[in-house]
């Protein structure tokens, strides 16, 4: 029993991380039809800069972590918005080329990060409480999982509130539904593109800082590893669906944890099989709209 609880909560923690990356991917794809390969780089740069600022101010304390998270959010948002404004926007409506530009960006930035911070992982300090465990139903659960879950819930709530309660949220939701109609009504959807990128980037940036807590290190490849799973999550959840992304990230991560434990470390393979199965039964994903 305690093993099941442990795997479940750990899976939820990992799922939280996936969600932070996948939410932005899904929104961006849903609104703009852009598959953003540079999303992992947003995460990595935010993780690195968050770590750089955090360790200079006060390493290994809550105050330092909070500052890292703030920096991560801001860096992710700014870098993502700049990417959209400088690169993606120039290729308006040419989806393959937009994806290609983000591919180039991700290759170039990962190389650049390696050049600046080196190829080896850099181990990070975290507040003492996060390194300890809490006992729930006999399972000793690392405390950082709770932080991840809480942050993902806050982000999910924030994005949902933004989409439901603000004018821009309304435009974005309408744009995902039917972009030409929104434009026909005289609304410039393109402005909301930058906002969606900034939101996605901010979530990924926060994800970057939290990933450095979860894994205990930052490296230039932090983003690329998470990005592949985030892609899988996005497709399983249904491209463009935020709820789908949330559900799928939990499903994928929990499945991965259980397979890793009970099926001898085959978590990655099981996830791929799950993706194939979902696409065969339901090509548009769990919550995706009809293509």
């Amino acid at each position, binding site marked *: 029993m305690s093993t099941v609880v442990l795997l479940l909560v750990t899976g939820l923690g990992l799922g939280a991380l996936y969600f932070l990356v996948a939410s932005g991917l899904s929104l961006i794809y849903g609104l703009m039809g852009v598959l953003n390969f540079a999303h992992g780089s947003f995460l990595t740069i935010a993780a690195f800069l968050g770590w750089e600022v955090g360790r200079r101010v006060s390493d290994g304390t809550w105050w330092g972590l909070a500052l890292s998270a703030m920096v991560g959010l801001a860096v992710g948002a700014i870098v993502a918005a700049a990417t959209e404004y400088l690169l993606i926007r120039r290729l308006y409506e040419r989806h393959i080329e937009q994806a290609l530009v983000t591919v180039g960006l991700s290759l170039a930035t990962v190389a650049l990060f390696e050049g600046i911070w080196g190829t080896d992982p850099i181990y990070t300090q975290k507040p003492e409480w996060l390194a300890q465990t809490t006992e729930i139903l006999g399972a000793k659960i690392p405390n950082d999982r709770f932080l991840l879950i809480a942050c993902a819930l806050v982000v999910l709530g924030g994005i949902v509130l933004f989409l439901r309660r603000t004018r821009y949220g309304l435009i974005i939701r309408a744009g995902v539904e039917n972009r030409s109609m929104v434009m026909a009504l005289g609304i410039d959807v393109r402005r909301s593109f930058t906002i969606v990128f900034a939101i996605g980037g901010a979530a990924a940036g926060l994800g970057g800082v939290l990933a450095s807590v979860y894994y205990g290190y930052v490296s230039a490849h932090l983003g690329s590893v998470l990005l592949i799973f985030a*892609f899988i999550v996005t497709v399983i959840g249904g491209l463009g669906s935020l709820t789908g992304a949330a559900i799928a990230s939990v499903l994928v991560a929990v499945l991965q944890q259980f397979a890793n434990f009970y099926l001898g470390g085959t978590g990655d393979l099981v996830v791929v099989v799950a*993706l194939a199965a979902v696409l*065969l039964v339901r090509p548009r994903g769990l919550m995706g709209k009809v293509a």
Partner: protein
Amino acid sequence: MNQQLTDAPAPARPSAPAPEASGRRPLVLAIGGVALVAALATLPLLAIEIPGVLPGPTYTPGTLQLLAYAMLIAALALSYRMMFGLAGLLSFGHALFFAAGAYGLGMTLNVFAPAEWSSGLVFAVSIGVTLVLGIVLAATVGALALRVTGISFAMVTLAFAQAGSVLIRRNPGSATGGDEGLSLDITNVPEGLVGVVNTRNLYWMALAVLVFVYLVVLWVERSRAGHVAEAARENELRVRVIGIRPYSVKLLIFIVASVLAAVAGMGYLLLQSGASPRIATADFTLTLLVIVVLGGVGYRWGAIVGGIVYTLLDQRLTALAGSDFIAGLPAVLRVPLSEPLFILGTLFILVVLFLPGGIAGIPQRIRSGRKQHPVEAEEATDA
């Protein structure tokens, strides 16, 4: 979703050829091609030096090794272009089949060696086994992945490639060598293909692989299946309305391209006397995508030019990164310039933004004097 493919007409169907020239043109091209292959084949016997591009004279093993590697990558890029450029299938899993060729042959040679057979027979049968393996793998992955289109297709292929990459790194039953890679067991490999002394044979083998892949690609593109695939790329609905199922044609193209990738992979194994897990990663497929787009998606020879230019650039930029000139620069310049992938990635972004036809599209652009990207039909849906 393949708007950019439409603007660069393949040489096979030039927009306005002169009537009398169209009959003679294929002949001229064929003669030119044969002459080029012959020239390339004599390179190991000559001592041509191109400072800055090649590491040494063309007869030296180092240069031949580099050129052979470039040609194998060009062959791989050519097979990828057939899928992406001709059929419009944006796959992120092409590396899987390259790795399947390399690892498949390596593992078969390790495991499969009946004592009573001659080594030449074992080698030939191993190649056959690997090809069959490649076909089965390609048919399975293709049949599953082609049930979805567009971005979902890309994701499914990516997922399969990722699974393959994980498997290779996991090293099940120490068959793949894990992170250290697989080294080639040379007991049953023909002597002429082993060792630094025989690099020129390996070079000729790589050239043969490239020519073989080119001819197969040419044949497929000119065939009826190729035309259907091209039509389905442009407008799948119309093809369906005519009464053709694009699925089977796409699957055929997928399988042929994948098996060609496996052939290139086998060449890679022999050339490098081993395989590293790097060739199975998603990054490797992305590199292929970069090569194809860099060279020009609309042109067959674009993939070849892209493959060779990319490999040479990569090698020379790595050499440049370790040079004294770079080490003497201030950190702001030194760090980016010492990362070849950074330069290549930036170059790629610039090509996508400002040179949609790639390198192979430059002559066409100069001829037509077109500066802007043509106005394209606005179509947001995926293929």
